[in-house]
């Protein structure tokens, strides 16, 4: 039993380990030594992709873009989740089902028209455009998680706040956001993961070199001629840094998030 599990664990861990040791080999060493530890470890590949290549710029871009996107994402998911989960208004349930219905369409299916819309609104090559598209695409899942959570908050809390004369917006800000903190951390982690790893929309909307995200920059390296696997490995590792750190620090939230609704955006 442990043997079977060991094989699966190895299969999951080995690719990352392989990329790590490969990124520390010189291209010449990699030709003759594919599998063993590097004989003379070098940071040359990292120097190559970070300083000479564009990885540093892409990394910074992602680090600017994603937190900004998260702010919009959180605002949208929390307000909508609270309204769907705990307020009463006409057509609430059909609208909620419509939100769920719209979350699975493939990015490529949407992208032809999204590109046209963004061109008309002057949102091509703009982070604002990409953020709005991301939030539209990833928002329904975050909203679903928040809605399911707010639906479990006792109605008495809402009613007693209302008896005290608290308006809906104040209630949201002073009561509903603080009590939902654990869920908010979950959707922050899910949102970061979704946006960090996103490719099609970035490819579509960020067409100038200076604006690209790190995942996009990495994806575009695929199929380029004359690129060593060692350089590629260093690029892959650079793009993996943030997702891995996220996992190390938020492992519990990530695993909780994956079975709370079970559909990644």
């Amino acid at each position, binding site marked *: 039993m442990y043997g079977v599990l060991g094989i699966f664990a190895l299969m999951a861990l080995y690719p990352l380990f392989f990329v790590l040791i490969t990124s520390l080999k010189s291209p010449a060493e990699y030709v003759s030594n594919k599998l063993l530890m590097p004989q003379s470890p070098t940071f040359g590949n990292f120097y190559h992709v970070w300083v000479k290549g564009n990885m540093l710029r892409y990394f910074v871009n992602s680090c600017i873009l994603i937190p900004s996107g998260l702010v919009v994402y959180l605002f949208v998911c929390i307000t909508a989740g609270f309204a769907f989960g705990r307020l009463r208004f006409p057509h609430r349930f059909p609208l*909620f089902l419509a939100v769920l219905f719209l979350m699975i*369409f493939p990015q*490529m299916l*949407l992208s032809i028209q999204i590109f046209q819309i963004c061109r008309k609104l002057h949102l091509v090559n703009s982070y604002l455009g990409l953020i*709005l598209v991301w939030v539209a695409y990833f928002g329904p899942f975050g909203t679903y998680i928040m809605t399911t959570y707010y639906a479990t908050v006792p109605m008495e809390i809402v009613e007693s706040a209302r008896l005290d004369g608290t308006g809906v917006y104040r209630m949201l800000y002073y009561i509903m956001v603080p009590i939902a903190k654990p869920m908010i951390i979950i959707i922050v982690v899910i949102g970061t993961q979704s946006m960090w790893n996103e490719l099609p929309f970035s490819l579509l909307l960020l067409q100038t070199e200076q604006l690209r995200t790190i995942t996009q920059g990495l994806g575009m390296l695929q199929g380029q001629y004359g690129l060593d696997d060692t350089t590629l490995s260093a690029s892959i590792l650079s793009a993996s840094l943030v997702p*891995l750190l996220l996992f190390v620090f938020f492992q519990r939230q990530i695993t909780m998030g994956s*079975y709370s*609704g079970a559909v990644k955006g």
Partner: protein
Amino acid sequence: MKSEARESYLLIAPLMLLLLVFILYPVLANVYLSFFKWKGLGKATFIGFANYRTMFKDETFWVSIKNTMVLLLYIPLGVMLPILISALLREGLKGWSIFRAIIYIPNILGYVIMGMISSIMFRKLGPLNNVLVGVGLKSLALDWLSIPKLTLNTLGLVYGVWLRLGFGCIFFLAAMSSIDESLYDAAKIDGALWWRTFWNVTVPSIRFSIEFWVVLSFIEILARAFPFIYTFSRGGPGFATFTLEYGIYNEGFVAFNMGYASTWASVLFVVCAVIACFQVALMRKNSDVQ
């Protein structure tokens, strides 16, 4: 109470507006534009069903459908394997949380990074073939990414099964943790073997989660595979790993036949709409929202 309705609409307005502009409108406009000849810029010309006629005669379209079907055939394995592993882990194996963390790594890294890594692993002179030659299985050291059928099936196995294995384990372990332990005790008293207990107790108890996972697998293959295919094989060799989704990319953004790409997209839309209905039904059951 009138004001609550108004305030509620204001609260959902940002989400609804974004969905309207960036999801609902694109989906509907696709169907509309599938009846036009259109290069993306300039005027679109109405051509009726001509795009559809072209598509049904287009060999690439049928290859893409066939490839998508082949990938879907990996769903049974992608469902059974995580259930089996979870059932093994459930039996109080020590250190399973470490194992769970490790097996989850591919999911953390996302499809672009995993696509890039997989493509390096399966190179002709890559590490996998090095291992195979090293252990004396030289005949198995194939050129994984150049033989069409082989590449497609490798994609099915890597993307359809292995990549989501960790996610599946966590998902099913969570489902199994809520099974009433007395059911297992009863089975033990009856002297049921592990296999029978698995079929008669474990599987029926997590039926809902299994249904969810099956729908999710369809979504991942039909609607989420583009980033992985783009970085793993770029749709190649030839058209060997083209799916409907990849075909839209190719027609729309490589060949710039936007109208024709919309025709492919309309087919994909119908398929996805059916899956979405299943998904909505399951999510309704899953949440307390009424």
